[in-house]
């Protein structure tokens, strides 16, 4: 009944042009392009995992970009100034991250919690940026360049797989229970015999180590690093991935990170400003309607006091010992 | 746990001021009290007793709306109208003439005694002048507080803080006052004076009182009727004189 032209000009919108644009957008997506994004996602994921570990133990850090930056800069120094090969730099960066994490713990994690910890980590992160800007050895405002592009898809895949395996084992171990215990209620956990301080340090150490690797991969991916990259925007993107996925399991971060990386590409161009707008809006919506995260399984289980007690008991018991009757 | 209803003349005549019916209070999945029914009649002092953990404070908090009830109804009769207050906002309840005196965090520590009193009426009275007038009135009745009017409430002794909290409750000209363990931490002498004060408030100001108490003897002394709770429910109730004499009271506290 309606002529094609009439349908076309329905509501005055030139649909044909719109389809043409979208088709162009999608057709310009080649497999190589997709692979690119997937690799970026993988690199991002590792650093996000580091943050996930911190959050899972109740160490709410708002300065993760700083930790990533430390990892990236130590990688850059190793590789560019001292010519360390990529495969060697990986574990070394991990160690650097581990060290940084422990320092963070002693400086901040051991004394502060909650709001103060969040603000302090943020301040440290921003302070680091200022520090890097004014350190000529590290290239000052121009940063460091010349890092080889070693993060190819196969490398990243292997590293991510190893990290995921490690996380999987960690989540099954009794350390994980300690993390949960000190996150839910440090006082109860302490009373039950969980070594709160030690567990915190462990969380910072492991989180730092993983972030160290993440930062290394990142440096080897972008090949040029400069101070302004390691500020609030990066922290926010990492935060978003972790929060969207919920804190129950690291697979949540996998899903959350996927959202952060892939959804914007579905909709429009690579305009970073739109993306951030979308992120900001998303996080508000998620928190208001689904504080447990996006995953259906992400909604936090209601824990009774009994559950907490049981978790703390299991965490505090030496491995292999039987816990008291439940 | 059975709920033994008490046949009380005033209750039969329908002068119930507060009626709680099958109230259930939960904190998340934990049930603090269940199937709680009680009444406070015009002119009465009613005591809610029971050992620690029986759920008395939860019931009181729930009546006041500080903890939303999981189920059940609470009805308040203010002299002219009956109100369903179970799901009402606490600040609206205050407007109806219900005053609440908590057991912990009794006063506003960083405000002066005078200001503590003032805010008791400031948000309920028609204007500030009237509220200030009431402050003067109450300082007359509570000379101990008047002596410390400019001091910060945190510097008062435990007994004085309780007095202040009760005085603050009176600021709003309430019809019903809920008190949570007013004897907590008080020496016997102070205890005596506080409880005498409560009796006075009940008789002279015509304020009906529901009091949760650990000090069983004192509570039974001044109250007309009592309900005894045990592990989240009402065990039994009756005239305070009868309850004091009976064996069931001891059983409820010592458990079996």
């Amino acid at each position, binding site marked *: 009944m309606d002529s094609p032209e009439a349908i076309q000009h329905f509501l005055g919108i030139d649909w044909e042009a719109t389809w043409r644009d979208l088709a162009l957008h999608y057709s310009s997506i080649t497999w190589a392009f997709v692979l690119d994004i997937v690799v970026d996602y993988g690199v991002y994921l590792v650093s996000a995992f580091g943050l996930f570990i911190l959050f899972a133990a109740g160490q*709410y850090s708002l300065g993760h970009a700083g930790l990533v930056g430390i990892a990236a800069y130590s990688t850059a120094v190793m590789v560019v100034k001292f010519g360390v090969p990529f495969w060697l730099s990986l574990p070394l960066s991990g160690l650097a991250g581990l060290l940084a994490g422990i320092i963070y713990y002693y*400086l*901040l994690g051991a*004394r*502060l919690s*909650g*709001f*103060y910890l*969040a*603000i*302090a980590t*943020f*301040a*440290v992160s*921003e*302070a680091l940026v*200022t*520090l890097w800007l*004014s350190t000529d050895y590290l290239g000052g405002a121009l940063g460091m360049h010349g890092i080889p592009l070693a993060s190819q898809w196969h490398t990243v895949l292997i590293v991510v797989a190893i990290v995921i395996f490690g996380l999987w084992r960690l989540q099954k171990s009794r350390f994980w229970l300690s993390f949960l215990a000190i996150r839910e209620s440090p006082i109860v956990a302490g009373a039950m015999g969980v070594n709160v301080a030690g567990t915190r340090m462990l969380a910072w150490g492991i989180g730092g180590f993983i972030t160290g690797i993440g930062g290394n991969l990142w440096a080897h991916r972008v090949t040029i690093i400069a101070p302004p990259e390691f500020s*609030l925007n990066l922290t*926010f993107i990492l*935060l978003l991935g972790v*929060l969207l996925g919920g804190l129950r399991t690291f697979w949540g971060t996998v899903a959350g990170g996927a959202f952060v990386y892939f959804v914007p590409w579905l909709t429009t161009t690579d305009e970073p*400003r*739109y993306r*951030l*707008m979308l*992120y*900001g*809006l998303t*996080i*508000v919506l998620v*928190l*208001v309607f689904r*504080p447990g995260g996006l995953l259906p399984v992400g909604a936090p289980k209601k824990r009774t006091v009994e559950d907490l007690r049981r978790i703390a008991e299991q965490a505090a018991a030496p491995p292999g010992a039987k816990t008291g009757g439940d | 746990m059975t709920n033994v209803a008490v046949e009380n003349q005033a209750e039969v005549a329908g002068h119930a001021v507060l009626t709680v019916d099958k109230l259930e209070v939960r904190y998340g999945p934990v049930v603090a009290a269940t199937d709680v029914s009680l009444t406070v009649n015009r002119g009465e002092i009613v005591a809610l007793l029971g050992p620690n953990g029986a759920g008395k404070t939860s019931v009181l908090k729930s009546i006041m*709306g*500080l903890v939303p009830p999981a189920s059940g109804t609470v009805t308040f009769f203010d002299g002219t109208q009956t109100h369903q207050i179970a799901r009402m*906002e*606490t*600040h609206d309840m*205050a*407007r109806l003439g219900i*005053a*609440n005196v*908590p057991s912990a*965090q009794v006063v*506003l*520590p*960083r*405000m002066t005694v005078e*200001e503590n009193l*003032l*805010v*008791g009426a*400031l*948000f*309920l009275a028609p204007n*500030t002048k009237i509220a200030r007038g009431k402050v003067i009135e109450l300082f007359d009745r509570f000379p101990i507080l008047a002596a410390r009017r400019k001091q910060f409430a945190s510097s008062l002794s435990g007994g004085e803080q309780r007095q202040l909290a009760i005085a*603050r409750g009176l600021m*709003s000209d309430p019809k019903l006052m809920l008190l949570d363990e007013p004897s907590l931490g008080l020496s016997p002498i102070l205890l005596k004076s506080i409880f005498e004060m409560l009796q006075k408030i009940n008789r002279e100001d015509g304020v009906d009182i529901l009091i949760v108490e650990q000090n069983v003897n004192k509570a039974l002394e001044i109250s007309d009727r009592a309900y005894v709770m045990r592990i989240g429910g009402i065990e039994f109730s009756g005239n305070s004189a009868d309850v004091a004499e009976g064996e069931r009271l001891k059983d409820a506290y010592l458990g079996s």
Partner: protein
Amino acid sequence: MTAGYFTELIFIGIATGALYAIVAIGFNLVFGTMNVLNLAHGATMMVGSYGLLLVFYVGLDNFWLAAIVGMVLATITGLMIERLTVRPLRGHWWNTKIATLGAAVFLENLVQVITNGHPQNVPRPFDPTYYAIFGSFEVSDFQVLLIVVSVGVMLGMVWFLKETKWGRAIRVLAQSPDIAKCIGININRITIIGFGISGALAGLAGILNAATFGSTYPFVGLLLGLKGIVVLIVAGIGNMRGALYVGMVLGVVETMAVGLGGSTYRDLVAYVAMVLILLVRPHGLFGEEGRVVREV
């Protein structure tokens, strides 16, 4: 470095610090009393400055009118933040913090998209006149204005909290939400009032900042907001007078650092100060133990 130059630096520092103080006081009202960390306070400041610009953009040339419009817009923003992110998440302080952060990111990038991101020039209310005092150093009347306004804001806030009905309500809420409810205070309504005032103050800070530098940009709220938080923490959360003093001291120390060492170290002062205080005396210089401290 002459004594005159030195004193001039101090004066500039005080003026800069005055601005930080206004930011901190606005923050304080909401955080110190309602335990809500409004991370969108910075973005609200930015909205204020852009509201200012908007008026000029439509052709009206009056700075004071523009300032009023800017403050109104900022107040509205503050109220919307309360309605959309704070109220639904009441009680979950962590979620609230992130949600307000999300709102901030959204707002800042929205403005960025709309205005194409370039810093915008902001007309000054009047050309500053410089007065030579004590011989060689100059102060401008604009700087004096800043100082006067910030002291005025602090005094106004103290008066509001101590003497007015709503101010008292806010203080009651800060000390005991339960008692507040029991004496008839409607917590929702108070929160709205608090956010409204806080928004207005944010707008004021944003406008003053824009007028000082002669320009504004979408992410101006980040740094300024962070400085405000630093002042709060160093002074002790909830303390208004302390916020004023600490703000000014911070401004002076910063300006000194710039004068002596160069502009790269300016922000470092704030960060170092904050970390130090957190390690040594977490409740702040004028604060007491426990999170929420003296309001006035």
